């Protein structure tokens, strides 16, 4: 080590920098492990799990490159620091073969990343299946309204709910998302990434909860004064509990539970 780095010892601030970076990396890893309410690593639904796995696929190579570049910089500075004022190094102007290599190599690595990416885009961007439970989501300054398109309440209207979305575990939910006023973004980190609610447009997505639980989310597109408070909770429950909740709210299936969601316009999908 000493010979490699040269005669002078490593300076204290280099050690400090390295320690700070290592410490931050360690903290990042502890961050992944915590079981907090909107932790994207703690995925509890099919969509969120696929998104998390894709993130890991990109994150680990990125960390490797980061460590390589940062360590490379520190080693270069220590090894090649000027030792006498009239030191003159060899004038190297470039090396075409080397440069072509480090142009092509990233292309290959990145193209490898692109394959599962595109595949996942189409998988997650497909229309909800025909047996999905259809829910129409409307962003309103500053609340979320959910309407079950295929379930009517006692007044004959679609059963609706403000702020809480009850869903049955294991069943695909087909969401059609729009807004009544400004842009919002529907996001429940543990179940699925976000999709914007844009007035005049309707976007479509699907999600699924793999286990019962209460999953919090909040508006992710800046929407004015109440943006920070525009929260929602998805309550995933067994089919029996879900049915009981519907009954309690006075709802009854209108078009049969298998009815497909009907997007009301726009190209839909992600």
């Amino acid at each position, binding site marked *: 080590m000493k010979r490699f780095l040269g005669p002078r010892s490593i300076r204290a601030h280099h050690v400090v920098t390295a320690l700070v970076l290592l410490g931050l990396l360690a903290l990042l890893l502890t961050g992944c492990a915590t079981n907090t309410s909107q932790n994207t690593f703690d995925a509890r639904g099919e969509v969120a799990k696929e998104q998390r796995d894709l993130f890991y696929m990109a994150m680990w190579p990125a960390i490797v490159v980061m460590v390589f570049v940062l360590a490379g910089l520190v080693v270069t500075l220590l090894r090649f620091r*000027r030792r006498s004022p009239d030191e003159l190094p060899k004038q190297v102007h470039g*090396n*075409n073969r080397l440069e072509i290599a480090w142009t092509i190599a990233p292309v290959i690595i990145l193209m490898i990343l692109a394959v599962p990416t595109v595949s996942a885009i189409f998988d997650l961007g497909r229309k909800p299946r025909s047996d999905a439970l259809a829910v129409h989501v409307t962003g309103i300054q500053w609340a979320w309204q959910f309407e079950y398109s295929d379930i009517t309440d006692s007044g004959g209207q679609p059963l609706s709910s403000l702020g809480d979305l009850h869903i049955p575990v294991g069943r695909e939910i087909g969401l059609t998302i729009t807004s009544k006023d*400004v842009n919002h973004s529907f996001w429940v980190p543990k179940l699925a*990434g976000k999709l914007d609610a844009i007035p*005049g447009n309707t976007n479509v997505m699907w999600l699924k909860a793999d286990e019962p639980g209460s999953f919090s989310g909040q508006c*992710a597109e800046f*929407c*004015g004064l109440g943006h920070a408070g525009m929260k929602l909770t998805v309550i995933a429950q067994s089919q029996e509990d879900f049915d009981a909740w519907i009954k309690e709210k006075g709802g009854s299936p209108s078009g049969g539970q298998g009815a497909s969601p009907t997007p009301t316009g726009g190209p*839909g999908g992600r």
Partner: protein
Amino acid sequence: MAAITQPGRGTLGEALAGVRKAADSHYGILSWIATVDHKRIGIMYGVTAFVFFLFGGIEALFIRLQLAVPNGGVVDADQYNRIFTMHGTTMVFLVVMPLSAAFFNLMVPLLIGARDVAFPRMNAFSFWVFLAGGLFLNASFFTGDILNGELGAPDAGWFGYAPLTLKQFSPGHGLDFWAFGLLILGVSSMAAGFNFIVTILNMRAPGMTLFRMPLFVWMTLVTSFLIIFAMPVITVALFELLFDRLFDANFFNPAAGGNPLLWQHMFWLFGHPEVYILILPAMGIVSEILPTFSRKPLFGYPFVVFSGVAIGFMSWGVWAHHMYTTGLGSVANSAFGISTILIGVPTGVKIFNWMATLWGGSISLRTPLYFSVGFVGMFTIGGLSGVTHSIVPSDYQQQDTYYVVAHFHYVLFGGAILALFGGIYYWFPKFTGKLLSDGWGQVHFWLMLLGFNLTFFPMHILGLLGMPRRIYTYSEGNGWDLWNLMATVGAFTIAFSVLVFMVNVIVSLRRGKLSGNDPWDGRTLEWAISSPPPAYNFAEIPRVHARDEFWHQKYTEDEQGLPVPVAAAAPAPEDGEHEGGHGIHMPSPSFFPLLAAIGFPLIGLGVIYDYAIAAVGAVVLVVGLYGWALEPATEE
């Protein structure tokens, strides 16, 4: 160069005396107001942008104070929204862009061996319009009842997504000031963009071929082209927004058949090239500093040039990666995901070339080098988190979270700002004749690097833990508390490092070590002339024989490629080039660019409040332009 060399006039000495007299025809503050000297304009750009940097920094400290702990009570939601909008707008349009412009102004003529830019008065005009636009934008604060804590500033974010920007959702005049302010700043940028394209293409010294141009000049050229193509896009969008707000048009109003997504497309079609407008000049600065401080030429010059040009072109094909979650469809998301992945390639090429430049060099560990290496390291982290954004489905989670905030601060602060500080330490002696203290410079660097990472690294984690952007408060129990507190501590560390810098500048200006012409053993033409340079820069226009011309005047290479100092360091001037003498034809000072610039904010105020003011503004503008056009170019 025909304008500069007029045969048949007195000797060189007489010509120089004449120029000095012309430059001294105004004194003190007036000499600055009327100046058309690119160096003075550059200094004014730099100082003004630095003052705005302090504004934007204070806004950032308010943001961090509010978010330091859960349920913070420093500002309320309304104040918070206005402050973060002004923070973003200020840092992009009033800090990083004009700081880059400061370096274009200061350095481009010196680096290409010219006496000034192609259009010196238009250059002054660019600066005054920038100042007018910046003041206009910040004047919006006072449209509210500011003494009672009601800020009048815009409140829809620097990205200003419709329909939140429409009158019905954002009453008050903040957004009118925002839109008009950005239009004014666009005029300034366009004028500067054209000026530098013409300067670089036409004013290079004899022998300075395109492939002998210093990298910073190349990056200025690419940036200028991006500016002149990108600004018109945002201009159209801003006009549509103003029409919606002021004249009840319906471009973005969905209730009347308008489409809010149109704004996002136009904003990001401008906004993504804008990102490269902010970063390419920084890359140029670093590409000058690294070779100088390692006494080695830039590794793979053509690769670095072409990767910069490639970034310029590709920047037009990635805008929708800001819009993955707007429902564009799988095909569009795939296309923009792949283009975003690919733009990482030329960026990576640059990083490897910078590292290879240092490798095998004789590295002088001085402040400019620390900032440049800091840039390479931090920009790498920002670039890598950028690659994770191109993994589109994963970005559905990260979009609009603090992960994105972390990403672009690594690029724009860890990238652009660190490089710009490096440039300040590097070229400060050229324009003041004094070196900034290296010891305090290193204190500044380490504090800033530490503060920066303390502030922004935890934001990656915050985003992944589900914290959205632009929320003015949050409750406990999300696992965000510690990271937010760290970020706030980091922000104040950055603020302290900026204070160190300011003290360093003030003390060094008074008592700094004299630098001489060439304190760093420089490679490019600016180090061949005195510090500070005379008004005319080069008594004789240099002849360029090589890339890194000045280095080759000082050193030759032996067979093994090792440099050998040239015995008589003084470069022999070219003989036989100036029989009959030179007239150095320098542009004369003018007040008309300033007058014309004053017209713009008046027109803005008039459109918002009362057309009579707009009429006055239009008259001022026209008088300014006519006076400028009819004023004799040189006092004889």
